[in-house]
């Protein structure tokens, strides 16, 4: 990893006031993404993985807010940047794709409108309407949409699920972002289409050298496409490290649980063991380790606060039982 990461998150805390009290959806997250690197972020729903990156883009909706922490993009702290500066960053240097293109694309506008308005917002194309249109055609071609000229005038509902996802990716890469945040890019897709979309994302990254964050609940997706992985639980990073190393030898009990709870094609005889219990109440997380109530290895000392500890070789884990 290079000395100055493209994106560096330190001590990020994002909170949502609710009737049950203040929910710390993200509670002390540290993450780095190097230029050109792919970071996989894995966790169950409610683990805070999406909110972490909504915080990066300033997309947390009031009354939710970033309470503490630092988000550095290219060395500049972008947490709490004024709206105009954030807007220039969004879709420009940092782009995002969402889980379901069917709901993320506006049903009332053609694909052309939705691509061109992004280009316009960031003034990335010289020339008038014709140049913008040509760029839009080019973008659709790049994400592998056949016959882009004629599809440009169509509406999102006229595309298949996989093609829609490609349109969304085309919009995200329209302004050549340096960081692409792909939030659950395959969850809404058929299994056969999933691999195509992941390959497309990988190709776009290879082509442009942009950094990428791949948010997923599926360790398998992350395993095959990411350089490094961060596992999140209860608003915290519980383990991070090079993908291969983490999957081959997980250090945190939660990561082990995740790996055991999914089928393994290489070892089909291995039983699938779900993680018992439920994720903790976000308004009242257990003291100490958040995973303790569900952890098969929990013991004395687990109810004391535990920090993410550096284990060397780029690895870190948040567990008192892990020796450095």
């Amino acid at each position, binding site marked *: 990893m290079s000395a100055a990461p493209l994106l560096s998150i330190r001590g990020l805390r994002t909170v949502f006031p609710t009737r049950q009290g203040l929910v710390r959806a993200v509670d002390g997250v540290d993450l780095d993404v190097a230029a050109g690197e792919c970071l996989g972020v894995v966790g169950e729903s409610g683990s805070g993985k999406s909110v972490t990156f909504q915080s990066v*883009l300033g*997309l947390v909706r009031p009354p939710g807010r970033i309470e503490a922490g630092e988000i550095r993009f290219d060395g500049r702290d972008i947490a709490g940047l004024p*709206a105009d500066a954030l*807007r*220039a*960053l*969004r*879709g*420009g240097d940092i*782009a*995002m794709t*969402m889980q*379901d293109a069917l*709901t*993320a*694309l*506006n*049903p*009332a*506008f053609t694909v052309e409108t939705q691509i061109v*308005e*992004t280009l316009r*917002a*960031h003034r990335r194309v010289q020339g008038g309407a014709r140049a913008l249109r040509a760029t839009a055609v080019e973008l659709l071609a790049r994400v592998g949409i056949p016959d882009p000229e004629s599809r440009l005038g169509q*509406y999102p*509902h006229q595309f298949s699920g996989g093609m829609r996802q490609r349109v*969304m990716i085309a*919009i995200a890469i329209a*302004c050549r972002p340096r960081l692409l945040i792909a939030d659950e890019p395959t969850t809404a897709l058929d299994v056969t289409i999933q691999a195509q979309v992941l390959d497309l994302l990988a190709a776009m990254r290879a082509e442009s050298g942009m950094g990428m964050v791949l948010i997923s609940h599926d360790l398998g997706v992350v395993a095959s496409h990411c350089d490094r992985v961060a596992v999140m639980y209860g608003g915290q990073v519980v383990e991070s490290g090079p993908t291969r190393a983490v999957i081959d030898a997980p250090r945190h009990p939660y990561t082990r649980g995740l790996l055991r709870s999914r089928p393994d094609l290489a070892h089909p005889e291995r039983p699938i063991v779900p993680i018992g219990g439920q994720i903790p109440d976000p308004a009242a997380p257990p003291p100490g380790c958040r995973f303790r109530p569900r952890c098969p290895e929990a013991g004395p000392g687990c109810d004391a606060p535990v920090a993410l500890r550096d284990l060397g070789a780029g690895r870190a884990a948040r567990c008192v039982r892990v020796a450095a």
Partner: protein
Amino acid sequence: MNPIALAERLLQLIPVLFGISAIVFSMMALTPGDPVDVMLGDSLATPAQRAAMRQDMGLDLPMHERFLRFLGNAVQGEFGTSFHHRRPVADVIAERIPATIELTLAAMLLALAIGVPLGVLAAVRRDGWFDRLATVATLLGVSMPGFWFGILAILIFSVTLGLFPVAGRIGYSSEVPFVTGMLLVDTLVAGKPKAFLEALRHLALPATTLGLAMAALLARVTRSAMIDALRQDYIVFAEAKGLSRARIVLRHALKNALIPTVTVAAIETGTLLGGNMIVETVFGWPGLGRLVVEAIFTRNYPIVQAAVLLYAVTYVLLNLVADILYTMLNPRVRL
């Protein structure tokens, strides 16, 4: 919209019109009261004269025969003679239509100009003081009866302050050559700015009375549709694209939110074009609504029947317009 679908929709008019005719015809026939008695009153007309008049108006025939005759004539565009005016029904109605159209358009423009921005702003500032104020105001607007608001407006602005005329469309001194029948247009065409202002002053109160109630309704519909639209994923994605707040609200959210608003506006226009009987009566507005009220009181069957048929046609056509607008706003819908 393809021509086949359009033709289908127009064909649907036939059974609707037949049904409405039958209902109106029987209601009028079963309502107590006799047009001949109304017209001749307690005059000295002999029973023979009354019978002759009844025969003359075709009222001596059995009900089903009268209905069939009415239908046969109506199909040929013949609606008979107004008992009261002694002139063809079509002429009497045609005379009154421009006043109602003028009032309707003015009220609807006012309603759209006030209601849509109000709804958008209330949704954007949801739960803020503006939203709360707008909610109370629109609730008042929706629930206030038009006749009460109209009378109040006349009392305050016409009688006490003398700002607006009490009734009518234009002063007797103004002569405006007939072009469209809508005085705001005709006075301008004739190049009479003074008469135009006078017509505008006459129109102001009735249009405001109708327009504000409609604005309140449109504001409520727009607000809830906007709140729903602003919650959608495509708004988050639009934000993530770096679009301006104005573009997100006024294009991405509003185009989707306008779908229910346009539907309600079109249907309400249909209702207004039928002539708002109460407001037209309160303001002495010589439109279709007041004509029908008069016709009902004088048992002027031919006018009532023709007017109700006209309502039905207008209503169905405006619904068709709403559907067409709907497809323009929402590309997922194909008729």
